[in-house]
């Protein structure tokens, strides 16, 4: 399935949700295909950050299964019409994970896969951090942390006012939850009983200056979200079946927003990047890219 496969796109071009089932007739990818997709996404991420010479591999690699589950199994969206009014929305609040989002968007068909290599280059549509006006499929400009959930609330409230039934997914980093605005928004989403919002915390345990537990302790994180009146689901953020179950369960919750705390590994899939804080915001060298691609072969 990877790379050039667009068979999932129905004639209308709309990507529909689907379960992991051999009897699935929707064209929705199987578990094996998803694992293969994840491997390709990781290869894209490492390659393009290496080519760019700067970027954030750690928090991009940790988000691969979350993003691919959303775009290939959960959300209803249309790569041929990125601003289709009825689409489910994905909002990347941790804007530095843009390479992961770009890789997924390219695999979906929002823009050519070859364009991924223009990341961070002059005149590219792929800016260093997610940019709403630059890239087809990107919903929000991000890069300054803490803002995505507020934006998502606005999108969800607008949907409610317009009687649309789209769902809004917002991905935050765990370190991002240091920002006060996240908790202003958490309070507001619960106040407005926005069950059309599912937040995902990419809980990889590290931020730029080190382990969250040393820089600024977030725990008990699930209890914090519960105290803000959110429905909390914890899951392995690299297990497709668990992730899909979590998204399905979250959408069934009515009268309050849900948050999926996805336990992930920063740098997942590349041995020397895993749990290595140095690769938060550092590009791999050419030799490191080569080594990483061998591991991801």
């Amino acid at each position: 399935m990877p790379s050039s496969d667009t068979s999932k796109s129905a004639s209308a071009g709309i990507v529909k949700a689907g379960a992991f089932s051999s009897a699935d007739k929707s064209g929705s990818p199987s578990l094996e295909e998803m694992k293969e997709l994840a491997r390709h996404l990781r290869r894209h991420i490492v390659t393009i950050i290496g080519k760019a010479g700067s970027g954030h591999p750690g928090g991009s690699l940790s988000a691969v299964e979350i993003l691919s589950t959303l775009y290939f199994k959960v959300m209803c969206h249309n790569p041929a019409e990125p601003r289709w009014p009825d689409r489910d929305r994905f909002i990347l609040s941790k804007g530095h994970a843009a390479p992961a989002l770009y890789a997924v968007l390219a695999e979906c068909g929002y823009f050519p896969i070859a364009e991924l290599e223009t990341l961070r280059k002059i005149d590219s549509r792929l800016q260093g951090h997610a940019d709403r006006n630059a890239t087809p499929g990107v919903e929000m400009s991000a890069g300054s942390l803490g803002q995505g959930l507020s934006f998502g609330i606005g999108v969800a409230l607008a949907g409610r006012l317009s009687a649309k039934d789209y769902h809004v997914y917002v991905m935050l980093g765990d370190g991002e939850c240091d920002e006060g605005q996240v908790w202003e928004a958490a309070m507001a989403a619960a106040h407005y009983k926005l069950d059309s919002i599912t937040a995902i915390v990419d809980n990889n345990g590290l931020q730029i200056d080190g382990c969250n537990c040393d820089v600024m302790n977030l725990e008990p994180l699930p209890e914090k979200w519960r105290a803000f009146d959110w429905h909390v689901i914890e899951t392995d953020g690299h297990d497709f079946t668990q992730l899909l179950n979590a998204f399905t369960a979250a959408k069934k919750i009515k009268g309050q927003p849900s948050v999926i705390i996805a336990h992930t590994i920063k740098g997942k899939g590349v041995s020397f990047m895993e749990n290595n804080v140095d690769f938060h915001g550092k590009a791999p060298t050419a030799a490191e890219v080569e080594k990483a691609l061998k591991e991801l072969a």
Partner: protein
Amino acid sequence: MPQEASQREAYGRTLVELGRSSPDIVVLDADLCKSTMTGMFAAEFPGRAFDVGIAEQNMVGVAAGMAASGKVPFASTFAVFLPGRCFDQVRMAVAQPRLNVKLVVTHGGISVGEDGPSHQAIEDLSLACSLPGFTVIAPADAVETVQAVKAAAAQTGPFYIRLGRPKLPVVCPEDYQFKVGKAALMRRGNDATIIASGIMVAGALEAADLLAKENIGCRVLNMATLKPIDESAVISAAEETGAIVTAEEHLEHGGLGSIVARVLVKNLPVPMELISMDDRYGQSGKPAELLQRYGLTAKDIAQAVRTVIKRKH
């Protein structure tokens, strides 16, 4: 004495009117809807009014998300909190993506009065004008406020509109027609030009009256739109009157005076005097006392005109 009217009340009333004709208008506030008078809209359209509590950063983000989903959000609070309290949110969520968000703030300038320097926004216009793509307006009175708010609703793109707390003299005539980015000629004259915005327009007209008694003919321009500035009106004033005084309820840095000076140095430098808060904060006091203490009265403007005329060649 001219009739006085509240810009805030005019804003609230205009929002209700806009709400009746456009279902996409939504209104956000941060626990100040009684003071900003957006509560008038909330009373008639409770389903389209969102008081997010004391959380200005969240308010701006929510407004951006609504704008990205086809709504026309008006977000309001005091000018000290917006953009100051949430400048990064305005920059990142509104200005960079150029979303159709209308930020309308009240309690601008030192005429806030007794609440003191914490509540006197004198940096806000500089911050708002620094943002690429923003339209920034400081209306002179209630009449202009109505028209500026309607213009913001009609035009796609981010707006910052700054209103005052006290009732202000009505200076715009009944047939006044506000145009975004266009200065309004309030008084003809050829000896010097006073360019004013907001509350200072009334003071500029009073100064022109004082100077008329000395046979000094002052042109008065109401420069409600600070960005984009009406360059041709500034250049014409320089050409035809040869001297300019600006008057604003704001720091000298980054406000109307700085903007006019920039236009002049690039086109036609002429002697110029700046009436402003200079580079200092205010204090508690009655609005009129504060305007007097900090040199923002008609007398101060008139004196600046006499000075600038002496500097003409």
